[in-house]
């Protein structure tokens, strides 16, 4: 059986924190550049130019793309034939702390959500999926809270139908307005339970799929009709893309969750 040490995982997570926060993923950059080509209004163009330049400045000068270096969300795809020596959970927490410190990132986390206190480098949300094989894939997504705050969940009636689903999703973006750094990437989770729909909406932001479904295309059109535009300056691009993940659900319900990402959708992966 293949074995990897917790210390190796810590090291990799530490590197991922820096990589994710400094280097905008190429798929996101491509979406931004395509949007720039489509926009005709001067203010939308200049907003997108600033966003694209910002990514280059961050990369070149080793600065965080955004000062909100987020609450790190860690997705693990853990091979069932892999053995880990030491504590996986501790390795991730320690890796996050070390990476955020080394990368001069921001202390954006309070350990007690009620009493708050001084922000620290600790803390991460970890989602684990057991998969075939003997490898461990780690994906780290630093999620800023300007956009996380605009997340929404609704438990629709099972007879609601697709129009009500669309209305809810477009409505969530309308409510977010320009607050969450448009143009957005919209993650949607449909089905499962309340908690699982929310997780699916987050997973949708991972960029695992490249082809858009009919529903996704229609949602993108509906959202872009809101004309919020880059940085709220108006224009064609309120969202760059919409991704819907779905799962079986109960005959009595229809959970729908929306997770909005700002234009700085940051993530980095590694396979061990």
């Amino acid at each position, binding site marked *: 059986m293949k074995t990897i040490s917790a210390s190796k995982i810590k090291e990799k997570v530490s590197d991922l924190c820096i990589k994710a926060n400094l280097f905008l993923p190429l798929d996101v950059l491509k979406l931004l550049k395509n949007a720039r080509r489509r926009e005709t209004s001067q203010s939308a163009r200049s907003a997108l130019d600033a*966003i694209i330049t910002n990514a280059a400045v961050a990369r070149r000068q080793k600065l965080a793309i955004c000062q909100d270096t987020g609450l790190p969300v860690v997705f693990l795809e853990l091979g069932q034939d892999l053995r880990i020596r030491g504590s996986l959970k501790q390795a991730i927490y320690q890796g996050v702390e070390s990476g955020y410190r080394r990368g001069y990132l921001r202390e954006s986390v309070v350990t007690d959500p009620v009493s*708050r206190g001084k922000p620290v480098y600790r803390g991460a949300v970890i989602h684990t999926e057991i998969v075939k094989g003997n490898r461990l894939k780690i994906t780290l997504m630093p999620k800023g809270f300007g956009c996380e705050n605009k997340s929404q969940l609704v438990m629709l009636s099972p007879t609601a139908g697709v129009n009500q689903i669309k209305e809810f999703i477009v409505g969530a973006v309308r409510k977010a307005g320009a607050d969450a750094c448009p143009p957005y990437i919209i993650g949607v989770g449909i089905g499962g339970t309340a908690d699982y729909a929310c997780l699916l909406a987050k997973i949708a932001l991972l960029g695992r799929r490249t082809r858009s479904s009919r529903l996704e295309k229609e949602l993108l059109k509906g959202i872009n009709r809101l004309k919020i535009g880059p940085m709220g300056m108006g224009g064609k691009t309120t969202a760059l893309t919409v991704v819907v993940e779905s799962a079986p659900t109960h005959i009595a319900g229809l959970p729908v969750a929306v997770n909005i990402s700002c234009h700085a959708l940051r993530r980095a992966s590694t396979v061990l």
Partner: protein
Amino acid sequence: MRKLQLSRKVCGGLNAGERLKLSGVIYTARDQAHCRLAKAIRAGRKTPIDLREKIIYYCGPAKAPKGRVIGSCGPTTSSRMDEFTPLLLKAGILGMIGKGGRSPGVVRAIKRNKGIYFLTFAGCGALLAKYVRSATPVAYKDLGPEAIYRLEVRDFPLIVGVDSKGKRII
């Protein structure tokens, strides 16, 4: 594009949608700092900085890497400060810099106090860092990135979001 040092008189002449570059001093303050400032004002206590004629920047900067004055330093969502802003405007601040829209109550308070609300490039903290010449924590240092920092800025890019007449573009 106009290059400006701000005063209430200058701000009174600016119109929503206008772009400018700000050189001068601004102060960061976000959620917890607002909470504390509001408590102090309501209790009739002195605030740790003189708020009169100040520009408040809704920002919690990232750590400054070695050899730099500041890390990434873009704006945070302004609407979370809406509940405190009318009070701060009444206490004498000149205006705010942030991202996103404001509540009708804030727009009314801006008009009443002849204040101003600026937008800056949202989600562009690395780009904005180059317009900051110095950053010094001056109050509530126990809050880390949420402390109040005095920033000296040069040519900091702004767009008038809500002008002193209450006209808005957002």
